[in-house]
């Protein structure tokens, strides 16, 4: 990775250096508005044409005391002149607004990295809150870094002294000062942010004015002081032309499901019980009343999925969403949906488990629960988006499959995708393929609740209100064709195999998996879900170094793509990185008897590019 620290040698006179990628982390107290600062920097970088990728590091669920270690909030943004897939392994620049922010983030800054601190905050009390015995700015513990001590609070206060605002209000603007400074350092225009400030504080011109002044003050500080050796320029990236917006995985998920309902021409019903990190999807969808979206905040996860099943029975798109512990609670009801063969989509934004685990941390630990977490032979479809913007696509795919095959489909996102963001090429609705709910027609004399479509094995979706189709369904084993309750031995065996075969046949609608690189390479790195970014970048770098390695990625997990076996047999070796102990690897080994190797990390964090890169080098080296 071409980074500032590696490129620049000794500081020189404010020269303008060109870089192809930079990663900045803003860190401060929850109250310091770091998320906002990072979002603004991201937006501006996008507008100037860089490729971007971001990840917020929000403190565990609740607000901790001001200035305390658990209260630190961070936002990392990576921007570049080439296509990138992750928010960067480590920051090149760390902006630390207080001692606690320094303490919790300095570990990630590589030696020689740039550290900008708000030195005003490094006083007794704050140092104590951050459990610093001595002041790191004085005790030499930061020698490894290029430290810039900026009295941000003071400078900001001075800039706003005659703004007519209270001291508290003034102090709130200091994040804009920091942002301005970074804008100068990376030669970004301020206009996007200036416009945004005007909008945001339209009702409050004084505050707007103050924020704008802080921003400019920060920018000018960089320009005018001798403090900074150099500043930098990151050229545009080559990107597919079109209209873009920055989007998080959870936003894309919500938009994807909304879009699916429009494509199917059926209302969306979302039954959910709040849970980190899935709650944002509920928040998003509950805003979409104008689209007729019905959101049901249930008393628990069981009620949420039950209501979704009821809505699907009624002909709506019954959707339910949760995280791992909630999926466990939904198990029994998902089994019911398997038996009654109704369309249902279940979102699982995975988080670190087992049990309550680490709610704000990411993991891929629920794959086997999604596959097998129900009594009896209870097959369901499983899909997994590969990146924040891919959440949009796979959400629609989930419904396409669920409706066509009348079956539950589990949509496996995770905290890293849900909270992470990247640019999204805004799609054209009219160009998307419609979804046909294909309801059973009224008064069909040949209607049989469990008669199957010969190609898909799907049964009719016969919704209440349709004259002539009155019938009863339920969780007891059904008799083939009639759907009546049956304890017949041969019938049960047949139905069990029908349900399995139906899910297997979804492969008809699953695209082949693509190989990036030589299909016969010495090593194929196979991933699924959110490991896409790290794997793709790592493999591209290794390829650039001339290693014989290729990558492939699974977004359809059950059924698996038809060509997967070939793809796995052609390379000499196969490596599967997973944020679990090897769940998908187990499924593939069982199915194909191929000795797939694992790279497994279960630390609540995504893979860094370097981790994957090193493992590849180790195998091929």
């Amino acid at each position, binding site marked *: 990775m071409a980074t500032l620290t590696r490129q620049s040698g000794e500081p020189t006179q404010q020269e303008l250096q060109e870089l192809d990628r930079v990663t900045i982390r803003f860190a401060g107290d929850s109250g310091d508005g770091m998320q906002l600062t990072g979002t603004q920097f991201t937006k501006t970088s*996008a507008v100037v044409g860089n490729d971007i990728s971001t990840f917020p590091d929000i403190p565990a669920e609740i607000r901790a005391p001001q200035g305390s270690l658990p209260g630190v909030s961070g936002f990392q943004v990576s921007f570049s002149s080439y296509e990138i897939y992750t928010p960067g392994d480590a920051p090149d620049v760390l902006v630390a607004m207080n001692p606690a922010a320094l303490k919790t983030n300095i570990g990630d800054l590589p030696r020689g990295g740039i550290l900008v601190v708000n030195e005003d905050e490094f006083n007794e009390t704050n140092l104590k809150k951050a459990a610093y015995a001595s002041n790191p700015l004085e005790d030499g513990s930061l020698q490894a870094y290029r430290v810039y001590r900026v009295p941000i609070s003071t400078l900001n206060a001075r800039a706003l002294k005659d703004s007519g605002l209270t001291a508290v209000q003034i102090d709130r603007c200091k994040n804009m000062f920091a942002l301005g400074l970074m804008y100068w350092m990376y030669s970004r225009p301020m206009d996007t942010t200036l416009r945004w400030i005007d909008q945001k504080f339209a009702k409050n011109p004084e505050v707007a004015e103050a924020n704008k002044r802080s921003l400019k003050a920060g920018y000018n500080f960089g320009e005018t002081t001798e403090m900074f050796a150099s500043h930098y320029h990151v050229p545009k990236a080559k990107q597919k032309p079109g209209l873009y917006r920055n989007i998080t995985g959870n936003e894309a998920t919500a*938009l994807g499901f909304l879009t699916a309902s429009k494509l199917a021409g059926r209302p969306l019903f979302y039954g959910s019980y709040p849970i980190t990190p899935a709650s944002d999807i509920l928040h998003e969808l509950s805003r979409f009343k*104008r689209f007729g979206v019905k959101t049901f905040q249930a008393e628990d996860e069981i*009620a949420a*999925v039950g209501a979704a099943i009821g809505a699907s029975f*009624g002909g709506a798109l019954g959707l339910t969403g949760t995280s791992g512990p909630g999926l466990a609670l939904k198990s029994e*009801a998902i089994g019911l949906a398997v038996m009654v063969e109704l369309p249902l989509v279940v979102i699982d934004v995975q988080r670190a488990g087992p049990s309550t685990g680490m709610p704000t941390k990411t993991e891929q630990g629920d794959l086997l629960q999604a596959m097998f977490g129900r009594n009896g032979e209870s097959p369901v479809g499983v899909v997994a988006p590969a990146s924040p913007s891919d959440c949009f696509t796979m959400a629609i795919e989930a419904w396409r499959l669920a409706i066509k095959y009348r079956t539950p489909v589990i949509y496996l996102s995770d905290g890293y995708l849900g909270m992470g963001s990247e640019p999204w090429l805004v799609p054209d609705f009219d160009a998307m393929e419609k979804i046909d709910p294909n309801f059973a027609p009224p008064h069909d004399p040949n209607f049989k609740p469990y008669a199957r479509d010969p190609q898909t094995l799907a049964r009719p979706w016969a919704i209440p209100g349709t004259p002539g189709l009155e*019938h*009863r369904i339920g969780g007891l084993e059904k008799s083939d064709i009639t759907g009546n309750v049956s304890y017949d031995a041969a019938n049960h065996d047949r139905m069990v195999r029908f349900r399995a075969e139906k899910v297997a046949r979804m492969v008809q609608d699953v695209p082949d998996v693509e190989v990036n690189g030589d299909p016969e390479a010495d090593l194929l790195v196979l991933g699924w879900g959110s490991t896409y970014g790290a794997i793709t970048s790592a493999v591209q770098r290794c390829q650039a170094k001339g290693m014989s390695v290729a990558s492939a990625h699974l977004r359809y997990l059950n059924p698996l793509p038809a060509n997967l076996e070939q793809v796995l047999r052609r390379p000499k070796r196969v490596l599967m990185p997973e944020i679990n102990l090897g769940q998908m690897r187990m499924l593939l080994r069982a199915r194909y008897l191929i000795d797939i190797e694992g790279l497994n990390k279960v630390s609540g964090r995504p893979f860094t590019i370097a981790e994957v890169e090193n493992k590849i080098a180790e195998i091929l080296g």
Partner: protein
Amino acid sequence: MVTATRDDRADGNVPVLTRKDFVSDQEVRWCPGCGDYSILAQTQKVMPDLGLPREKIVFISGIGCSSRLPYYMNTFGFHSIHGRAPTIASGLKAARPDLSVWVVTGDGDALSIGGNHILHVLRRNVDLQIILHNNEIYGLTKGQYSPTSELGKRTKSSPYGTIDAPLHPLSVAIGAEATFVARAIDTDAALLQNVLERAHQHRGASFVEVYQNCNIYNDGAFRDFAAKEVRADRTILLEHGKPMIFGKERNKGLRFNGARFEVVTVGEDGVTEDDIFVHDETRPDPGIAFMLSRMEWPEYPVPVGVIRAVQRPTYDALMTKQIEDVIAAEGEGDLREIYLEGDTWTVEE
């Protein structure tokens, strides 16, 4: 078979239906003599009077003997999983307010595993009819005690007697903000039909407890007060606007003594009909209804009929209205607009 032709449906006319139209082709599978037969019969009887075509009616149940009822109704039906019928019904009704949705459940299904959903479906006031077959036992699993079994009851799972005090279904319902609460007895066909019709007329969640005899595992559980011979003296039919009088001679009544009800005899020690408390099912304050829900034989006659029926907007109606209001205020949603929310930029060729 339905007597109606397609056309009058197309015209939206309601076809003329009879009880037989609501009898499905499935063989009824309850023990001979089970109280569920009567509940099924009365339910089928009242259906034609609802003035709805069959396809607009849905019966949703959990698991239990009682929960098999939907199979026998020639309407749409869903025999779901244990305790969860209210959740499925809530989702269906919210998505499809045009349907008449009935929940059939048992004392275990509704109050043991399903207790939480009952609390919430009632407080939300989803427009459903919830019919609880209370036989004070787990029938389907062959006779363990239920949350309504009397303290000390000996069953397969309590050979030395239970130590769990029972719940009072109607008290639970009123404690959960129920807007319609009623009670009937399997063997009193007229009362049961009347209560079922009232439940359907009520806009909101109607909670109906039906005392149902399980002649296999809990025979005679209600005999003491529900048996024909004694019913008049040991139950009291509550009628809106009428004094709470009961008894074969219609001379017994309930008087409120300042903090609680007491049973008095009209004509004895100076008690006149004016002293008898008048039943008002529409009281906004559920206090009195709650007191009625506590009355048990032998201290009191067992109240039957409609105990509480008050108006409150239904969950499904509010959901629809909220969407209509938002659209009226902000206009129909435009996908493109939502896609472009937040900050956008263009990458030129």
